[in-house]
């Protein structure tokens, strides 16, 4: 299926027309959203998630294949085109992990058997394992985030994936991103992390609530990204060593 996601620009926080008038994204593309806190990054992906039709403070319009999406694709999870990992770090539902995942699978038209796949996958992202009988509300921030990520990868398998600051969770960010950004999807990544910001081919710079500029990742930036990946690998191994109660050694 051909799929194109378009954001028609609206206004920034001052009510002035945002400099980027239109943003088109195609299948297989990862796009970054960067900018200071409060610059409107989460609001932008919020607009995409709800298929805004001039009815949010930004006045933006979201189009799918050049058209206004139908009400069903907006609300029915079985037809939903969008999976979203928000910044929420905790569950509020007073249910066990297993009950919750089975009910979510049902809402997305998936068999109940996927619940155990989600738990298994989540446990590859987090240190302390999650058990299906655990109550959601006792999970740590990292465990909750790992579960939300695995839930999206397995149950909310939608062609458009919105990811809000995956680096904040204390989980393995690159593995998590790989899980979410499946083949042929449109992936929008809000991030403050230099490595994640330089991985996509383009990034939108937000300022004062508006889309200010689009930057294509340069050749030089790609090299920087590769360097950062090596640094990140080193940081991750240090983190693991320290977490396991061992002593670290000098850089190789």
């Amino acid at each position, binding site marked *: 299926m051909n799929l194109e996601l378009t954001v028609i620009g609206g206004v920034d926080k001052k009510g002035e027309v945002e400099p980027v008038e239109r943003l088109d994204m195609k299948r297989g593309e990862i796009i970054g959203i960067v900018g200071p806190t409060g610059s409107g990054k989460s609001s932008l992906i919020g607009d995409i998630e709800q298929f805004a039709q001039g*009815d949010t403070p930004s006045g933006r319009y979201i189009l799918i294949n050049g058209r206004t999406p139908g009400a069903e694709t907006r*609300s029915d999870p079985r037809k939903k085109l969008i999976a979203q990992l928000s910044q929420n770090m905790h569950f509020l539902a007073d249910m066990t992990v297993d009950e919750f995942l089975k009910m979510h699978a049902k*809402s997305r038209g998936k068999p109940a058997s996927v619940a155990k796949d989600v738990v298994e996958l989540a446990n590859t992202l987090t240190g302390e394992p999650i058990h299906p009988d655990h109550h959601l509300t006792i999970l740590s921030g990292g465990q909750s985030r790992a579960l939300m990520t695995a839930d999206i990868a397995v*149950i909310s398998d939608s062609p458009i994936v919105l990811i809000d600051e995956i680096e904040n969770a204390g989980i393995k960010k690159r593995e998590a991103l790989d899980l979410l950004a499946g083949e042929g999807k449109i992936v929008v990544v809000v991030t403050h992390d230099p490595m994640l910001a330089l991985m996509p081919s383009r990034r939108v710079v937000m300022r004062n609530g508006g889309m200010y500029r689009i930057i294509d990742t340069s050749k030089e930036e790609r090299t920087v990204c590769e360097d950062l990946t090596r640094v990140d690998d080193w940081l991750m191994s240090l983190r693991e060593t320290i977490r396991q109660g061992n002593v670290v050694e000098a850089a190789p």
Partner: protein
Amino acid sequence: MRLVVVAGTPGAGKTSVLMHTTRRLLQLGMKPAVVKIDCLWTEDDRRFERLGVPVIVGLSKDMCPDHFSIYNIDDMLAWAASQECDVLLNETAGLCLRCAPYPDSCLAVCVIDVTTGPNAPLKVGPLLTTADAAVVTKGDMVSQAEREVFRERILEVNPKCRIVEANGLSGKGSAELAELIRKGPETTAEMRLRHNPPLAICTLCTGELRVAKEHHRGVLRHLDGFMEYMGE
């Protein structure tokens, strides 16, 4: 005249959602009037006044707020007509979750807060089960998965209702709700309630303060579920 009855649990965001929706209705060229029902006190009329729409407050005081709301519907509709409005938005203050103040020919809207957890839709009763639209608020506080599970639970108790994801802060969902209102039913002369109010009344309703069992009369229900009539 169109009638919209907005009910929901306290603090769910009824007023905020209705404010955004009122703005949208004005943009669509409709003429909304607002009646805000509360039990003891409210200042919400000032919030609506700022939108430049006619608004009145009804305080139910000693009467059940849902019964008060139902009993005064004729007067509210007459008032809205006198203000040359074409849609009456009635925000109720139901608290006991046993009544549903929805007449048949109105748009019945139940506002429910997703942070109350996936068991909440099972507790709300006729307010939700007989509604035309369930407006789910505070979705930004939880994950997408939790919103979808909540939605599934609502559909379990009311499979035909239209679910609108709304946000009282950003105004999300107000355009969708305004569109439902615009296409909503016209009121009729002989309206009937969708759901029966609870079996009334007992001596507590009429002011009995003594606690001991021997002082109570009326239709009474025991802890074990046994129900009886005590009295002459």
